[in-house]
């Protein structure tokens, strides 16, 4: 069952929200011992919310569009009076004093927040192995990583421990784990979902999105969480582009860049198969070029790390979070608290970012990266004057094994090579699972990228492909 039909049945009184939630809680209890998708299950507040919904239905009061739908949230979104850790020791005991706008919107539509999911610490990573607490396993093959940084949210939906989950995507953190776990993952247009209440990694790139098992639920979830928010100055007042969708009028661009070479054979096979399917549906395929995307990876790491080095300054142990008891001076208090609280990848990025913002290096790194970012944006702008959607694989490889890339940060960073350009350009992109699995049972994801505020056309094309 998908989210829409569950919500409809709850609304009509055909099934009870409490039954659904109990069902999901049982399933989590059974499955998550192995998968470890959740850092915490909010059983009490979830059941309380479900009872409220059932009461409303019984009293014939209106209920929301997500009535009784179990939703998991990534552990970097605030849910009032619930713990939020960013999978970091520094926030191990942090209780949210308010709720994120996206969470509030879910609750307003009577979704049930069922728990918070594992992730790479502060969303930095591509395998969820950077969590300070535990490793999440890929439900398709437990020897493999679920991807990251929203690995827990992807695994929760893949193992049907939630119908919808929220993730955050800064350079691919929704799309890459979606591809690895065989689910749908949406990174919306920058500015379409409020970032208020999302613990920031890189402010100019972070975007909340969702995981689902089908395009319809994705469309519904997106319609709930998106929209202008006065509390987020970068949230846009622009609406979805209204355009009648006709696949025969759709032009799909295939980038002819060097990084398209060297794909894993199975991914190449599925990629060609998808092109064929789209042709069969009547779409026209065009070769395009996004010449500056070859610099996307270093550009991304300079901008994202620079912003992160500043955003994570607030975790200083003074007002909340881990603070060292051993310090004998203010400077040591900072050094010890942050030294004990942050994991190695977070430290690496803070140092990288601090360096690139420093006097004498700022122009050569940060400013230069911003200039290249503009060039990349222009590449997309130009491409979208000729085509409607860009098709690439989501990742160059399928899910790798635990420990495979942990020792080599660069090889880990390369797993986001296809997803980072859209993040830098701020456009919307989605990863959709292909039907055929690898011999290891792993999934392949295809990435569809469209122009700003054009998510609707992505949902339409995914709908056609999934039929």
């Amino acid at each position, binding site marked *: 069952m998908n989210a829409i039909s569950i919500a409809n049945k709850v609304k009509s009184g055909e099934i009870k929200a409490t039954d659904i939630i109990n069902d999901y809680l049982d399933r989590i209890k059974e499955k998550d011992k192995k998968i470890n998708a959740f850092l915490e299950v909010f059983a009490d507040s979830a059941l309380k919310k479900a009872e409220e919904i059932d009461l409303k239905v019984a009293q014939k009061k209106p209920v929301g569009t997500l009535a009784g739908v179990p939703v998991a949230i990534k552990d*970097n979104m605030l849910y009032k009076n619930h713990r939020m850790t960013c999978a970091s020791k520094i926030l191990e005991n942090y209780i949210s004093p308010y709720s994120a706008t996206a969470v509030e919107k879910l609750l307003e539509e009577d979704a049930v927040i069922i728990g918070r999911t594992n992730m790479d610490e502060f969303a930095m990573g591509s395998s969820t192995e950077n969590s300070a607490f535990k490793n999440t396993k890929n439900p398709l093959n437990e020897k493999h990583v679920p991807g990251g940084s929203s690995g827990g949210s992807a695994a929760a939906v893949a193992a049907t421990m939630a119908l919808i989950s929220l993730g955050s995507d800064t350079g691919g953190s929704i799309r890459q784990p979606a591809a690895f776990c065989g689910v749908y993952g949406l990174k919306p247009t920058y500015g379409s979902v409020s970032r208020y209440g999302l613990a920031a990694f890189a402010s*100019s790139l972070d975007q909340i999105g969702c995981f689902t098992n089908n395009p319809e639920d994705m469309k519904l979830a997106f319609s709930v969480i998106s929209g202008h928010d006065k509390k987020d100055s970068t949230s846009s007042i622009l609406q979805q582009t209204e355009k009648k969708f006709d696949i025969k009028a759709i032009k799909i661009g295939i980038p002819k860049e060097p990084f398209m070479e060297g794909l894993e054979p199975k991914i190449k096979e599925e990629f060609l198969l998808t092109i064929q399917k789209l042709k069969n549906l009547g779409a026209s395929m065009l070769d395009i070029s996004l010449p500056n995307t070859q610099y996307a990876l270093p550009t991304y790491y300079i901008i994202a790390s620079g912003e992160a080095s500043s955003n994570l300054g607030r975790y200083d142990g003074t007002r909340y979070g881990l603070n060292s008891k051993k310090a004998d001076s203010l400077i040591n208090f900072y050094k010890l608290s942050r030294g004990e609280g942050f994991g190695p990848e977070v430290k690496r990025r803070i140092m990288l970012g601090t360096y690139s913002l420093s006097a004498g290096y700022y122009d050569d790194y940060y400013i230069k990266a911003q200039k290249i970012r503009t060039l990349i944006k222009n590449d997309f702008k130009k491409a979208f004057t000729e085509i409607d959607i860009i098709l690439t694989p989501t990742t160059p490889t399928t899910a790798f094994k635990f420990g495979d890339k942990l020792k080599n940060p660069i090889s880990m960073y390369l797993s986001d090579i296809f997803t980072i350009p859209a993040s830098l350009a701020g456009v919307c992109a989605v990863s959709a699972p292909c039907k055929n699995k690898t011999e290891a049972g792993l999934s392949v994801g295809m990435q569809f990228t469209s122009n700003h505020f054009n998510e609707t056309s992505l949902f339409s094309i995914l709908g056609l492909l999934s039929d």
Partner: protein
Amino acid sequence: MSDLQTVIGLEIHLQLKTKTKMFCACAQTSQEAKANSSICPVCTSQPGALPVINKKAVELGSKAALAINCTIAPYSIFARKNYFYPDLPKSYQISQFEKPLAQRGHIKIKTPDGEKLISITRAHLEEDAGKSLHSIGSKNLEHTLIDLNRAGIPLLEIVSEPDINSPEEAYTYLTELKKTMKWIEVSNCDMEKGELRCDVNISLKPKEAVELGKKVEIKNLNSFKAVKDSIVYEIARQTNIIKNGETVLSDTRLWNDKEEKTYSMRSKETANDYRYFPEPDLIALKLSDEYSSEIKNSLGELPHRKKARFIKQYALNDYDANLLTANKNLSSYFENCVELGGEPKISANLIATELMGRLNANKLEIKDSPIIPQYIAELAQLLKSEKISATISKQVLDKIWEKPTSPKELIEASEMSQVSDENQIREWAKEALDKNPKAIEDFKSGNEKAIGPIMGMIMKKSKGKANPKITSSIIKELIQG
């Protein structure tokens, strides 16, 4: 050795009078408010909290910048200034760096050599930090306490060019700036409350040299006097160093009010690298030409313009014109008097000496004056038409201060009007002269002042009602026969 020239630039921080903070909806509270009683997720920097620009702060900042003749940038951006300190919750201050709100202004000041323009480099918006409490009274605390009520309060930083060359010029510049800012009601400018803060950048160089000397920054200045005194001290200190053939160290120094000395806090060479970069949580501030001109129009007549007009239009002297443009209420009180028929110079005099004296003695503001402009206008008319003497006018003021009444009615009712009847005055004068033969001798031998005591006696006899002009001429007439 050639003469040394002092070169000073001032950095002013003005606390803007908004209801709420710069980037959140928390109220601005007074210093007396309970610690941490006006805080929220944004100003305590909880994870996920985001800043939203306070439009009123932009308006007040623009107003201030335009009042000191700056140009408002059509496009300005906020930037993060990164440093760690416990009273800085985000570990960065949101400020403006490369593209400030406003640039290129000036303030005109009066110097002994005439008028001088002090150029303003820039004016930019930023948020205040919180307050660290290390001790209570003389008792040192075991832990530092942090109060975040002040964190996020909007500030406007106004940076001058190094155009100031003496402690007096710095003082005048500050006075002029404060007067203007209070006038347009963008800040209360109370230095003791930290609503106006001033850092001094000072260096000395040989008069003919083009290149500036080593810059020293002075902080912790709690009054205009401290600014002046610290500059005097620094000039002496630096002159001494240079005269001894040594070089001044570029450092940041703290002014110690009690010892009247500056002490080095840190060397400029070891200064923080603030790693400024554009604030990605905020979009650029775009202000149209229409917005600028609308605010410019709302400024009205600024004090220095008003003062010039008072001198020209009402023939006031510089002192009175300056005094009457000290604040908006006072100047409109004065102009009300004139509109109600009070002769300008007489009204100005009545306000400047008589009314202000009484207000100051009672610690009252002009807006709380029991004497309304109508009464001053009437008094001025009575004086002008010589119906009453200056002495009587003082008595009238005393009476109406206690019990607000129309002076005209009071005079009519109490027969306090001036006596101009020559026969009556002659009678009083004869009586007085009879009792003072010595005064007659003195006057005759050339001492004009000798008629003073005679005048005094007549005034006493007439209860101050004798017309002084007529009285004086009658006395002279009687003496000279």
